[in-house]
């Protein structure tokens, strides 16, 4: 397994020097997620080693508060597919609450289909 590598340094204690949306989604740090979104709205485009965005990372780690935050405050894609070809709705339908599934399901039918030729949709792991 290749763990998500943090690029930013963390302070010893409870705060971070620079908030990282993927790290926040992985560990369930709501404040860090909020700070990351405020600092850089484009952080929602960051991907981890399995090509998952923050919403997918939050779902796979059962951090639904972060998932709802991302849905409420950002335009994060619910159709972006990870290295295994699963989008946020696939992951939510497998392992999230019905409430979160319905939220993502509604967004899924509204969001335009991604460009399949985009580099972003190419798997990064073998």
């Amino acid at each position: 397994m290749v763990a998500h590598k943090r690029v930013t340094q963390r302070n010893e204690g409870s705060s971070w020097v620079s908030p990282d949306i993927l790290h926040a989604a992985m560990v369930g740090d709501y404040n860090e997620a909020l700070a990351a979104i405020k600092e850089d709205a484009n952080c929602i485009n960051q991907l981890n080693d399995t090509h998952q965005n923050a919403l997918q990372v939050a779902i796979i780690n059962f951090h639904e508060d972060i998932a709802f935050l991302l849905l409420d405050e950002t335009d994060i894609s619910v159709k972006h597919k990870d290295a295994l070809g699963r989008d946020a709705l696939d992951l939510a339908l497998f392992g999230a609450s019905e409430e979160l599934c319905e939220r993502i399901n509604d967004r899924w039918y509204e969001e335009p289909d991604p460009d399949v030729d985009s580099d972003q949709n190419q798997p990064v792991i073998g």
Partner: protein
Amino acid sequence: MSEREQSKLKTAKILKFQKKYSLKDRLSVLKIFVEHLKENKGNEFSKPKRIIEDFYSHSDMSYDDIFELYYRKIENIKAGKTRGIDDPELFELVRDFVFRHAPKKIMCLSAALSIKLIGDALDYFFTDDRKSTIALSQLMRNSIPEMKAEKSKYITLLSIDESAIYKVGFSKWDGSDNDSMGIKKNLEKAYPNKIDIYLAIMNVHDHRHNFSILFYGGGVTDLYYGLNVIKSDIFILKNWHYGDPLSIQYKQDEWDREDNDRYMLCSGKSLTVNGVTEITNSERASDGFMNDHWKYRNWLELVKGKEKNDALVKAEMIFDQLVKNRNL
């Protein structure tokens, strides 16, 4: 039949349908259906008329009825105007369609449907003569002596419903736990919270399989899910994050015959967890070519005390997220 009786019957039918397929089950099937149609846009087979023909050829309903009832609905589902998840007959037709035309996508079904499907597929590989000769009711009744003998051939692991959870243990091959080479200590130092690996089992009211999960004590990023195939004493699991398959076979521990709670792990395919620990084929451990890691034997053991409570809470949380109403 009066109008009121008809209405009652319809309500009962819908309730039964909703009990059989949770909202997540229905949404996942419809999503795959819509995706399949989009991917085949412009293709003759994705046209509503052809879909109706396909439905008809796999249904007992008349062509006219199917056309009248579902042509417009399919158009609306395709356009995203309706979800099509509340009509029992339509859902069954769509589900059947998806399973026939988009089998590669069924990995994206809800946990409950996936587990059912994996279970049915695995049955093909683990079928034996006993299956056809011993009915479930006979096993449960357990009244015939031969049946008792057959049943006792399999190891029955306890489920989370019995407040039981297992931990994967590691000890030196010679039976001592002194860790003279310091491998375990080094692993624990390098990967705190990663060395505790738990296995939990949930009954799914199927005499062939139980729903199972394997996870770490420190977090739930590394979650494996799958089935415990009862009659083969084996776990077939898949990593939720990375998709890696994993099989773990178990048998009664020959070193601890008296201890009913401990089982040797003897997986045919070695389990590499995070590159940290390995569950290997125990028979090969005496091989002189094995490195130090392989000199450790692995076992499954019931967790007790405070550790049990913590692990149970985590396992319950995971099961709840995967199959909330346990409608497996």
